């Protein structure tokens, strides 16, 4: 893609828009049943992934969750391999065994994603331990939602990382929801203050739709972690536009209001900066169409793949 960007803002905008358009295309495709797999979309949350990954090096190792389309793409994962994976094709990022919830692209440091809430947080800590032992420069990043901080393993991970001053960034995408439960129904603590109890310096980004701001905040934290100052936590407030899993809106379900959504939407650069959208969308749409064609033309996994790569 030989697109010239006049600024960092433009470049990040392009990436965020790309993710938005990919997922909106998934919304269109979904009723066709080409994707027979649950999808947890990041529409509304793209800026966190884009801003954060801009602050990382390719060799930094990032671990995600079932809601990882945005981070997979922002970290540099191949779009064709992603769409093929969603369609269960042999050319998918996981050879058709992974689906939407288990994207991985180890070649660009996207080290897999898990459908068990919070379960990859300690993996990032372990990868940071490996980095420390092997004396490499890279850092590890754990990406997780607000709900994930409720799991015991989060406590265990923060403690171990802090104890050994490991080069790991804890990056929380706080969309205020775990499925349909609000923070108030789940958490007695504030995420940053809680992490500070382990001695982790923290920072928060309230404007999680603003990728420039996310980038600024995450870059500061990443720089400190890379310098060997130990682990840090960054909390980004953000907002999930669609239902927890699936392609629909669900503002009538009773657990949140459309007004909340409208407020976030009103501040979303991808909505406001229509000129940039108009400039970038065609190239992105073309890329998506090519990736779709690739996925569609790709073969199904061979039958004997069922029992390969087991143990």
């Amino acid at each position, binding site marked *: 893609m030989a697109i010239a960007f006049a600024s960092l803002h433009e470049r990040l905008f392009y990436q965020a828009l790309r993710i938005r358009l990919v997922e909106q295309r998934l919304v269109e495709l979904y009723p066709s049943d080409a994707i*027979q797999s*649950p999808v947890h979309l990041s529409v509304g949350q793209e800026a966190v992934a884009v801003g954060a990954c801009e602050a990382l090096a390719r060799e930094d190792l990032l671990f995600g969750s079932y809601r990882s389309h945005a981070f997979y793409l922002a970290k540099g994962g191949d779009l064709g391999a992603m769409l093929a994976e969603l369609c269960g094709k042999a050319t998918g990022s996981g050879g*058709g*065994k992974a689906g939407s*919830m288990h994207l991985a692209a180890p070649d660009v440091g996207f080290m897999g994603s*898990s459908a068990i809430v919070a379960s990859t947080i300690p993996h990032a800590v372990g990868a940071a331990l490996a980095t420390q032992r092997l004396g490499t420069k890279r850092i590890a990043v754990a990406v997780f939602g607000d709900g994930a901080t409720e*799991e*015991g393993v989060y406590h265990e991970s923060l403690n171990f990382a802090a104890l050994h001053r490991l080069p790991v960034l804890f990056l929380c995408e706080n969309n205020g929801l775990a499925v349909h439960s609000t923070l108030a129904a789940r958490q007695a603590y504030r995420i940053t203050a809680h992490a500070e109890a382990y001695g982790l310096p923290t920072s928060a980004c309230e404007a999680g739709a603003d990728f420039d701001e996310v980038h600024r905040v995450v870059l500061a934290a990443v720089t400190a972690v890379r310098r060997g100052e130990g682990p840090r936590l960054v909390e980004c407030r953000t907002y999930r536009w669609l239902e927890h*899993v699936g*392609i629909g809106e669900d503002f009538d379900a009773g657990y949140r209001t459309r007004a909340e959504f409208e407020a976030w939407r009103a501040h979303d650069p991808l909505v406001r900066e229509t000129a940039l959208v108009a400039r970038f969308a065609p190239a992105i749409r073309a890329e998506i169409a090519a990736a779709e064609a690739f996925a569609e033309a790709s073969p199904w996994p061979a039958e004997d793949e069922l029992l390969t790569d087991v143990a």
Partner: protein
Amino acid sequence: MTGAAFDTVAEPGHRTLTYRDALRETMRDALARHPHVIILGQGVDDHKAIFGTTLGLADEFGRERVMDTPIAEEGMTGVAIGAALGGLYPIHTHIRVDFAMLAMNQIVNLMAKYRYMFGGRLTVPMLIRLVIGRGWGQGAQHSQSLQSMLAHVPGLRVVMPAHADVIVAGYPWLVARHDGPVISIEHRLLYDVEFRVGAETAPASPFFSRVARPGKHVTVVATSIMVLDALRAAEHLASTAGIQVEVVDLNCVSHPDAALVTESVVKTGKLLVLDTSWQAYGVCAEVCRLVCERRPDALSAPVVTMGMAPAPCPTGKTLEDRFYPNLRRLVAALARLATGHDDHGIPLPDDASQTDVYRRFRGPF
């Protein structure tokens, strides 16, 4: 139904209700009848309501009795145990059995052992509801069926109802009469299925196995939704080839009725075990043990077992379809077992005709 533990329960007349409604009705009645019952779990109070099985209950009984919880399986299982020790009857839900792996310590090391470990001084009356499932690219971490891990552990009672009557009669009995921990494993694809149950049912223990369909040529021992597959296969073989398959619904997998299974095998001489999980160390293995320890001489052919392929569950549809047994392969295996050879000439159902229940299931979940 033959040899059913519920023979005494069936009243004249009956009604039809879905597995989901059987659960919801049972959950509601438990809350209404017993002030010390609480339901807790992630999302029990939301509009999805554990596949609809707790729908409306938070509004009716209050969110102090139908409690949403943080995402903290080990802790919340411990809270449920403590609540039981403190005088409540907790019903704890997990929308995927896979998540219960996070609570294995509380389930295996605490809940299962409290009674014995303290010489009977403490008891933990409670119910854990775990959902299993399949299909629609759920993948490796959302499709397991881990009953054997639980049934291996003395101190637990594990039921996998294949019929709504087990729920309608059995679960009220648990809440009212049983003072130990019980695990209910529910297959997601059963929720929409309709069953006929007695118009009025008296509470009765759900700790039994039973013959779901009598037959004389081959025995199928099955669990959960696989019982429905077995019944369909039996129907097919009866109508196309006059082969009478006896279907045993194992139901209580932790305390299976070994005598019932053995009796059936003695009658038919041929056994196929059909389970929702992997064969190794699963129900397939356990049923083989029950027979081996009693009447291996009754077997006139090697036992056939069917379950998930020995791999994690893949997501892509073509692989996923091969991962699970289907009706065609089940009928083929039964025809071979019954006739003793491959060229039996019995027509097999289409690959496409496999369980419409599964067909009707559509994501998102």
